[in-house]
Every structure is written in structure tokens, then in C-alpha cells.
């Protein structure tokens, strides 16, 4: 079942004298329950893609459907409503509110959607246990480690059971141990909860945890790899190969 369908996405920045086209008619389909990562060099448009897909930024042209709803035509209020119901976010710099405790941070999305308190508590206990952060629920973000922060952020993304979770370099600021911890948890949650995750990364190791890797280059899809029955190690090697072909900057003279 197709969860997210983007067709002919165009995104242009700047004014009419100085245009910069970042997305050039990109098509994309994500299926329910997939764990997909998007890779590409700096400036390839991967963060822009994530932003438009997640309704934070608007496309210049094209359509984006999530669970059959076209979000490109929605008004600001409708978008907020939509984000509240269907989307979860995970960021490189955690984006936790410093003045709230871990538990309060995690419960925010439920407070937006006005979920009853009892149910909120149950959901919190489950997700906090799964991510191993129940013990630190009364601590403030300043008092916990980076890995714990990112797991808190993940718990916040999952708690309202959104249709799709967008992750922007979630391991970017973590050490390798915390990063692999987090990625293991993410792929567990992907399995157990049938959660759909779309992750942007430039780290091949992180990408190797996914089921499918999409490479973009200069605003278009370059290629994609499926994990299939491969082990993570084998998949990682595949990714590395593709990436080296893709390269960073080409010097064509």
C-alpha cells in the first residue's frame, strides 16, 4: 500500500533574476511500513526534499499525497492539523524543549491532539520502556546524554503513532555507540509497530539499517538500492559502492 506519493516535485529558491532549482521534477513512492533512507551529497537537495515532504516547506510545483491527502494545496491551519495527526519528526540536534522534562517533551504531540491523560500515560510507559528512557523521565534535557536526548526525541516522534516519521540526520551528532543503539531501536520500532520511517543521512552505516536507500543527485533520483535478503554488512558494501560511483563533485573538463 502506497503511503506517500510525490510526483514531479519542483522547488526553486531565489527571485526571477537569480533562480536556483533544487528539486527538478522528482518522483517518489513510499510504502506503508517501510524504512527508507535518502542519501546524496551536500547540495543534492535531500534536506529540501525532506522539508517539502514533511510540509515544513512548500513545493514550487508538483503534488505530494500522504495517505491519499494532497498536502500541497492545504492552508496553514490544515497543515498544522495534518502534521499533528500524521507526521512525526526526528532531528539531528534533537530539538527538545530545554524547559520541559523528558516526559513532558515526549507527551507534547499527545497534548496537541488532546488525547485523554490516562491513555497518554499508557502510551508513554510503553514507548519509554521500548527506548529505555523510563528511568530518566523527570530529568531535563541538560541533564542527560546525547544518545538519551535522541531517544527522547524518537519517543516523541513515535508516541502519537503517526503515519510517517521524518528523520533528518538523526545520528549526526551522536557517537558511534549511541548511533548504532538508536538505529537498532528505530529498526525495531519499524518492525514491531509497522511504523513508516523516512530518513535523510549521508552516513552509509546509518543507511544500511534501512530496507531501501534512495540516492539523489542534483534534484533528481539517481538510483535506489533494496536490501532484500542481504545482511546489513552486504547491504552496507552495496551502498558504499553506489556512493563512490555517485561521487561528490565531478571534475569534467
Amino acid at each position, binding site marked *: 500500500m502506497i503511503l506517500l506519493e510525490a510526483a514531479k516535485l519542483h522547488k526553486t529558491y531565489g527571485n526571477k533574476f537569480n533562480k536556483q532549482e533544487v528539486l527538478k521534477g522528482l518522483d517518489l513512492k513510499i510504502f506503508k511500513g517501510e524504512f527508507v533512507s535518502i542519501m546524496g551529497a551536500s547540495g543534492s537537495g535531500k534536506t529540501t526534499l525532506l522539508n517539502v515532504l514533511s510540509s515544513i516547506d512548500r513545493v514550487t510545483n508538483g503534488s505530494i499525497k500522504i495517505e491519499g491527502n494532497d498536502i500541497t494545496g492545504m492552508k496553514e491551519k490544515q497543515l498544522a492539523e495534518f502534521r499533528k495527526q500524521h507526521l512525526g*519528526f526526528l532531528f539531528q540536534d534533537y530539538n527538545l524543549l530545554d524547559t520541559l522534562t523528558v516526559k513532558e517533551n515526549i507527551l507534547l*504531540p499527545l497534548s*496537541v491532539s488532546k488525547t485523554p491523560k490516562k491513555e497518554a500515560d499508557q502510551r508513554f510507559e510503553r514507548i519509554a520502556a521500548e527506548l529505555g528512557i523510563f528511568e530518566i523521565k523527570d530529568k*531535563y*534535557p541538560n*541533564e542527560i546524554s546525547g544518545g538519551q536526548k535522541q531517544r527522547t526525541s524518537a519517543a516523541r516522534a513515535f508516541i502519537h503513532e503517526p503515519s510517517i516519521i521524518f528523520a533528518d540526520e538523526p545520528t549526526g551528532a551522536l557517537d558511534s555507540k549511541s548511533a548504532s543503539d538508536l538505529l537498532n531501536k528505530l529498526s525495531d520500532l519499524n518492525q514491531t509497530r509497522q511504523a513508516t520511517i523516512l530518513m535523510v543521512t549521508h552516513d552509509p552505516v546509518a543507511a544500511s539499517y534501512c530496507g531501501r536507500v534512495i540516492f539523489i543527485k542534483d534534484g533528481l533520483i539517481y538510483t535506489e538500492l533494496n536490501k532484500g535478503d542481504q545482511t546489513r554488512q552486504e547491504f552496507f558494501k552495496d551502498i558504499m559502492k553506489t556512493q563512490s560511483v555517485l561521487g561528490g563533485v565531478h571534475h569534467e573538463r
Partner: protein
Amino acid sequence: MSVNQLILRNLKKNLKNYYLYVFALMFSVALYFAFVTLQYDPAMDETKGSIKGAAAIKAASVLLIGIVAIFLTYANNLFIKRRSKEIGLFQLVGMTKNKIFRILSIENFLLYYGSLAAGVFLGFSVSKLIMMVLLKITQVDGIARLHFSGAALVQTLLVFTAIYALMLLTNYIFIKKQSILSLFRVVSNTEGRVKTISIWEMVIGILGIGMIGTGYYVSSKLFDGDFTSVNQLFFAMVFILASVIIGTYLFYKGSVSFIANIIRKKKDGYLKINEVLSLSSIMFRMKSNAWLLTIITTVSALAIGLLSLTYISYYSAEQMAKNNVPAHFTFVDSESAADFTEELESNKIVFTEKRIEVLQAVMNAEEIIGLKMEEYTQDPAAMSVTVISEKSYGQRDVAKDEVYLTGYSDIMMKFISMKDSGPIEIRGKEEAIPLHYLGMEKEYPVSRYFGGSPVAVVDESVFEQVKKDLDPSIQRDSSWYIGIDLQDERELTKANELFNEHQYTEAGMNESRLDSENIQKRQMGLTMFIVGFLGLTFLITSGCILYFKQMDQTEDEQPSYTILRKLGFTQGDLLKGIQAKQAFNFGIPLAIGLLHSYFAVKSGWFFFGTELWSPMIIVMTLYTALYSIFTVLSVAHSKKVIRESL
């Protein structure tokens, strides 16, 4: 880009950001200049008659400088901290600290002296208006003319240049002390790190509320008879001040976060958007600004308190004049009265005349009056009392053996306690007449010549009895009160002119209520004028400081708004939260300030006038309304930031 262009660019940007600072600066300069102009104005001589006008204004202008200097250096500090990144960048590209300092100074110079010039111009144009306000409230007839005073200009320039130098010095020290790295970090350092509330903080929180409460309690007992000597009173006052001010500090340091924490604990992690934005941020921000908030609160309380008290006395002028002079014109010698009525008749002014015969006697009221403070009133067993007959002053019926007192005063009631009814005795020279006391009334039937309150109203037969047995040694020269009331108030000024023309006041205690009221107003007017403008300056500067603080915080919190909006909160949701937050941020210092001043005013207002509630409420409402403008501005600014945060 050359350095000059850089300066101009920065200036343009700053003007947009700091319009309020420019406004506050212009306002302070304008006010100061106007004050100094008044000081040099020949028209001041006319108000000089009341209190030493120029001297009072001079003292006020010194205070004004104090407030303005603190405000400007504080605002300047905030700004330079905000621009630390920029300064760091300049350093990074190889500018020397001295050069950066020069750039900042020139920029500051243009902004500062630009506002100064505008302020002087504004001050010059409003000084006439201010003069008119002053003449109006002091009831002095004078014509306000526009005088440009060179001396005033020089003084203003000197004072504000001194403040500018002070600002330069703080900037210099700031820049000298910082390294490139710390400049980049300064914003995150100024606000304290968020930590779990410790037990120690809870103790501070409870202590703070306790101390404020104790201060309030003692203040309400101040004149209730528990402190019987002047020394004790003095210590009680010092105690109240100390306990309330320290309590306020602890309140911001601990109590706010303590209370907020209790509320949050109850929510058990499930916070609504309002609570996310208000509770959680207030909890931590207030703590790091405890000193600033304490000063703002204390001085607001002082300003509101003084304003209330002066307004009470100004407001009570009418009532006081009415108590002292019960009719439009009162006479105690009938010759003058007859002369005056003739004058009125010949000028076709309609009036009514009321004559009351007034006797002096001694009252034994031991049974109904208890003393609260020993040294302050007469012995209740032998109080002097003014006696009039029910027939000549028929407000309320009294039987043959009854009496009621009239001329209630709040001040008197603070020093004595009185029962609602009971037996008293009125003594003449030889015999004493036992009477049943019925209660106390508010009205003052006769003028102050007859000794003020209380006045005993008795049955005609009793009155005759007292009259036969008079003690001549305590009688006044005149035993007749003659009150003349005009039927048409509009003719009062004309009648008053007639009254003054004939100088009836020379012939004894003949009085005009209008004059008595005006004298009182003149005495209080100048004080009120000065306190009012100082209060206004303070209001504006403290409002600005809070606004800048909020502006800073909002910009700091912008990332949070981004997160919240990504989570699906709408702009409207966030705005609601921000409104709640600003309501607290501005509301808590205001509420505490109002509460402080309420208790301060309540404990001693009766020394200043006859009416507590209306003047106090008027002052407080006005203050709150003006103060709210800054809250509105600050919400408007947050709105902009929220809009831009996604």
C-alpha cells in the same frame, strides 16, 4: 564595504529593532529637559508660594537622572550582549578590539544624540503643556508661555553626555573582557541552566511567601494599638520593609518556580500548550532575573504607593474642605455674616442661611471609648466635646435621654476604639447629665472653629440644660455658627470674589470652602505633579526593560517555536501560549507591586486624606493600563517571531 557604510547599515537595522529604546530615550530627555526648563522658568515663582517650587522640581530632576541613568546603562548592556555574535565576527575577520569599540561608539553616538536632539525638541514643545498641567492642578492662575532656556539646554546636554560616557565605559569593559569564543557563547551563559528543583529551592520558595505574608500582616497591625511607642513603630516599619523586600527577592528566586513546579507535578508530564510556554519558561527565567524583578517590583510599589497617597490627599481636598467648612461660606461673627448676605442680595445671588448655636462641654465617655495608643488622644473620661441641639441640626431624631456623635474621622478611629452604644455623661460646670449614646455619624455640622470632631447632638431640652450650666472658661468667643449655601453653584466664583473683597477672614474664623479647597490643592498639587511625572518615567523605563527582556527571550526561544510548530501546533495555539506567558511575565511583577503598595497605603493612608478606595483604585487602574501597553507590544513582537519560526 567601508566602516562608515557598516555603521550606517547597523544603525538602520538597530533603529527598527530598538524603536522602543529610542522612544524611551527621547521620552526621558524630553521630560528632563521640560523639568529643567520649568526650573528656569519665571512662571515657577507663582507656584513657589505654595512649596518651594523650583527646589522641589530640582530634587525631582536629580531623581529623574538616577532612574534614566540606570535604565540606559541596563538597556545598553542588554543590547551589546545581543550583538556579541557580530562583535565576535568582526574580531574573527581581524578587526582590533579598539576598532570595534570605535565602530560601536560611533553607532551609539548617532543613535543616542539623534534621540537626544529629538527629545530636546519634543521637551521644548511639551514644556508649555507640562507647565499648563502644573498650573491647572495647583489651581494657580498663570499663563504658560514658551521660554527657551539656554541654561536648561546646556544642563540637559551635560547630564546626558555624562550618561553616554558611562555607557561607553561599560561597553569598553565588556569588549575588553571578551575573547572571540566567549563572545559567541554569551547568550547561552546569561540564562541559567535548567535543572531539577532542589529541596533548598523549595525552602527558599516557602520562605519568600512567608516573609511577604509576615510583612503584610505586621503592616495591617501597624496602627492597631500593638505598637504603643514611636520607637516600636519605627522598628515595626523597618521590619516590614526588610521582610517584604527580601521576601520579594526570595519569591522570584524560589517561590515562582516552586509554585509552578507543584502545578507541573500535578499534571504529571501532560502539559497543554499554554503551560508549555508559560509555566515552564517562567519557572526558570524568573529565577535568573530575580534581582532585576525585585528592583522593578519594589520601585513600582513605591511609585504606586506614593502616587496613591498624594492623590488621596489631593482627592480628599474637597471632602476635607467640606468637613472643615460645612457650607459654601461659614461665619462665626454675625456682623460679617449680615454684611455678606446683604452683598449677595444686592448681586442677586440666591442663598440659604443656617444658624446653629454651639456650646462647649466636657464628656465622660469612659464606658464606650477605649484607647489604643496612650499618648495620642485625650483622656476618655474628660474629653472636650461640642454640643448642638437636635432642633437646629435635625439629621436624626434623639429622645430626651439620648445622644449621638457626629464627625467620624478615620484617623481618630485608628487611635481609639468605640463601642456601638452605651452610657456617657455630658458635664457642664456643676452637674453631669447621663445620656444613652446611639452611635457615630459621618457629617460635620459646624466649622472647625468649634473644635472639630466629635460633635454631640442632643435633645433640645438637654441642650437648654447644658446651656444653663456652662463652664465659661472653655467657651469660644462666638457660640453661633452661620452657614451660607448658594442655591446655584455656578455663582460660587462670583460670591467668592465678594467674600474675598471684603476680607471677612480678617474678622475671625470666617471661611470660604472654595478657598480652603484651593489652598489644600495647591499644597498637594506640586507634590502630585512631581510624583506623577517621576512615576510615569519609572513606569516607562521599567516597562521598556521588561519589554527588552521579553524580546530577548522570545528570540532565544525561537527554536522551541519551530519545534512546536513542526509538531502540529498552529500559530494561534502558540500565540495563546505566548499571551499566557507574557501575562505572567508582566503580570507577576505588577501584581506583587500592586499588592505591596496596597498594604503600604492601607497601613497609613488616613494621615493623608479622607478617602481611600476611589483615589487608590484610580491610580492603580491607570498604572496597570499604561503598563499593559508594554505587554501588548511584547505580544505583538512574539507574534512576529512565531510567524517567522517555520
